[in-house]
């Protein structure tokens, strides 16, 4: 398969502290990949190395066939980068920002088409400073996709979105992915990763703890299921089992059909994620490390 991103043995330290401590990752073209992890885990550092904003200390990195540290403007022409927050656009309109950015790309999309794609038709000629947080983020995404990128980086794209805006945004990302764009996404929202990503990687303390499809992450697909129902006395019953279908069949026979208040669940992505990162967050983790790494 054609590789969009290849990373092996990536290391990056700030002073004595390793922010990224040996990460391997391969992303194929057309894939949507979500990078998850607590603040200070090394997510941003990894992504910024891939984007060519940071120099690595060790390891091999290839993005669209080039080393980000030495790649030039022709390489950037094939990338779309949506940074964590972009400001400085308050005084211009979405249309002005997009039109100006379109001029620097060799394969720029039509400005009106992008405005429609990110749902800003009504706000296209308002000052960006007057837009809501979610609308500004759509401007950022519009700026990221205006150049018809082969590879799109999205750093926490839906922070501050309301649920409807998030659903609309997911639709947009799915349509981009459907068009063959490779997407690397970082997010704090596990439902977002589950909805969008073909595969997810969990990073903590600079290492890749797990890397799989959302359905199978951390053995999720094969782990025990939890079956709950209400018995004849009206008491809530819970049973963990590796053969939930058999249990449900038995219950159905016992109840002569419908089992009252039946649920069958496997660990949610969030359950798996939290148990994966649990050893790496807490008193010595998270926030302090997040401050040590400049954003």
């Amino acid at each position, binding site marked *: 398969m054609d590789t969009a991103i290849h990373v092996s043995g990536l290391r990056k330290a700030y002073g004595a502290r390793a922010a990224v401590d040996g990460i391997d990752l391969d992303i194929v073209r057309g894939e949507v990949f979500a990078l998850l992890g607590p603040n200070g885990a090394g997510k941003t550092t990894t992504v910024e190395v891939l984007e060519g904003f940071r120099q690595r200390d060790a390891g091999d990195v290839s993005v669209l066939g080039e080393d980000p540290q030495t790649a030039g*403007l022709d390489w950037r022409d094939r*990338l779309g980068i949506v940074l964590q927050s972009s400001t400085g*656009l308050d*005084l*211009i309109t979405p249309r002005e920002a997009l039109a100006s950015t379109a001029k620097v790309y060799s394969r720029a999309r039509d400005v009106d088409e992008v405005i429609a794609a990110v749902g800003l038709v009504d706000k296209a000629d308002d000052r960006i400073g007057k837009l809501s947080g979610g609308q500004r983020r759509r401007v950022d995404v519009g700026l990221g996709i205006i150049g018809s990128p082969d590879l799109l980086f999205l750093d926490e794209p839906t922070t501050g979105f309301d649920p409807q805006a998030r659903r609309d945004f997911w639709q947009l990302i799915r349509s981009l992915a459907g068009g063959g764009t490779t997407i690397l996404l970082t997010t704090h929202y596990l439902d977002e990763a589950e909805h969008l990503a073909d595969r997810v990687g969990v990073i903590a303390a600079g290492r890749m703890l797990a890397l799989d499809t959302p359905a199978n992450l951390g053995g999720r697909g094969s782990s025990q299921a939890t079956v709950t129902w209400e018995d004849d006395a009206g008491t809530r019953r819970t049973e963990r089992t590796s053969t939930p279908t058999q249990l449900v069949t038995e219950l159905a026979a016992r109840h002569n059909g419908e089992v009252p208040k039946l649920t069958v669940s496997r660990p949610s992505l969030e359950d798996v994620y939290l148990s994966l990162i649990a050893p790496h967050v807490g008193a010595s983790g998270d926030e302090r490390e997040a401050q040590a790494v400049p954003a």
Partner: protein
Amino acid sequence: MKTVAVGWDRTVLELKMYFREKEAVFFSFAFPIIMLSMFSVIFGGESFDARGSSGVNAARFFLPGMVAAGVVLTSFQTMALSVAVERDDGTLKRLRSTPMPPVSYFLGKVGLVVLTSLAQFLLLVAVARFAFGVQLPTDPGRWATFGWVFLLGVASGTVLGVAYSSLATSSRSVGAIVIAPALILQFISGVYFAFTDLPEWLKQVASLFPLKWIAQGMRSVFFPTAWEGAEMAGTWEHGRTALVLGAWLVGGLVVCARTFRWTKRGTT
């Protein structure tokens, strides 16, 4: 070709942003024009003709200083403030993430500075001429002097502004870091007071910086020839003016090339 086209597009965008920001328009673009008008009205009854030459009223007396201050405000101050803020808020990083040729960014800034400085100058002389009856020079030689002093002043101000922006560590501190020294320089460089009234040591200090030389060059354009003797050296010192401004320009370019960053400090 693309570099120039994108640079021009950046200029247009920069101009839109500049004139939509009312503080910038007031404190850098309109400020010298307002000051010239105020001084001309306040000191309108006083004679500035001590040397017996004719035709120097308050407006003509203050015009060279205001032209010089305008150059510093629209080039140095605008550049230092905007680049520092754009570095801090991530604008530079965002631009760097695109295939925009880096030179286009600077071309956009240069376009902004050149056009706003020229427009400001034209407004200044228009106000001086039509509101306060100032006699403007007719000698082409004087306008040639204006040309190179203005060009060197704007160029060095722009370059030094970009270099200076690296001193600001956050957009919160940038206002104080940029505006305070610019204001002090204006006071000691003969913009608001006659340079000859300053104590000798302060003149020496001011002579180290470009603004004194821009102001002196502008006096040589707009003052009567008879006033030349009142200058520090008794002449307009055109050669030295060119030398000092040129040195600052080259020095500024070197500092820019060595220190310019697209991202905030601590992000390598």
